[in-house]
């Protein structure tokens, strides 16, 4: 692990290099990305094209949002991939979350999950997300810093996946409300 001190604004920070080889973390991202694309095209179509794009993008945006808030100073709880800088593979890694969010919405709609069963559905998916994060951490995609632990992600998943259910009902409701009514 290499360290390099630089000054950003008035806070001294260190650029960390975890590795500089094309290895497990890159393969994990590429595999995840391919899986996302395959899932998107192989699942029978269930939503309009616009809604499909939104459900896919929801996961991507969450990845971008958290990796540009929790993983940057002043908190900087984790780094993504080989260095603490923003690399092409980091950019690609956010797009693999798209498949996750699409399948989440797809199954929620496919099995017509009732609101009273939603907390259980959210818990199951939070555990799936937890398992995937553990796999990604083992592969070297995430490097935790400043005392952050994998288990801290669970409440974040519960909150984020709950907000996805709210988004699902918002979009579903908007499709049934006449245009002039909005």
């Amino acid at each position, binding site marked *: 692990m290499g360290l390099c001190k630089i000054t*950003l604004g008035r806070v001294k920070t260190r650029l960390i290099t975890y590795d500089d080889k094309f290895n497990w973390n890159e393969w994990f991202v590429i595999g995840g990305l391919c899986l996302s694309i395959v899932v998107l095209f192989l699942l029978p179509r269930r939503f309009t094209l616009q809604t499909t794009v*939104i459900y896919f993008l929801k996961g991507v945006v969450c990845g971008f949002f958290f990796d540009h808030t929790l993983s940057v100073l002043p908190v900087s709880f984790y780094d993504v991939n080989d260095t603490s800088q923003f690399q092409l593979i980091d950019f690609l890694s*956010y797009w693999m979350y798209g498949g996750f969010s699409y399948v989440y919405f797809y199954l929620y709609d496919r099995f017509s999950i009732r609101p009273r069963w939603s907390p259980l559905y959210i818990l199951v998916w939070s555990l799936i997300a937890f398992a995937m994060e553990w796999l990604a951490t083992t592969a070297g995609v995430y490097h935790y810093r400043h005392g952050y632990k994998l288990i801290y992600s669970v409440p974040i998943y519960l909150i984020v996946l709950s907000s996805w259910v709210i988004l699902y009902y918002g979009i579903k409701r908007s499709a049934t409300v006449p245009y002039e009514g909005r």
Partner: protein
Amino acid sequence: MPLLTAVLTSWTFIIVFARMPKRLNLVECIFVFFISIIVMTSTFTLMDIDLHRMVTDKRPEYALAIIVVRTVLIPTVIMMSVNGLQTQLSWVAKSVVVSLPIVVMLGIHWAFQAMGVVTLQNWSTWYSVALFLLLTGVIYGFSWGFAKLRLAG
């Protein structure tokens, strides 16, 4: 102070957007919001962390102000602008609507520089103008393409 300014400015734009007549449907509004967040966060992180051209202060208040601007204020202004473009306006009015996000971004950029939140290194304000024009153009392009998907089903 920067955080309060960012939050209140964002909230003012949210109030204005809530009062505006909407020509975009909910899904299109969400799309513009999402794509703005993706484009803005990746570009500014690249400019800051990798290229060290627009270096931001990493103290908590300043960092939070930057996050609010990138993930709430700018996407909201762009959403307003894209929404405004869907209305029946004269080309002069449409030009004003199109230039609104760029003017807002430049205003924030200038204010943040004055407050010491952002420091430019080997970078000119004109480059910022060109960058903001490019980013807004890219987001308009994506929004236009997404609106076409409505016809595709």
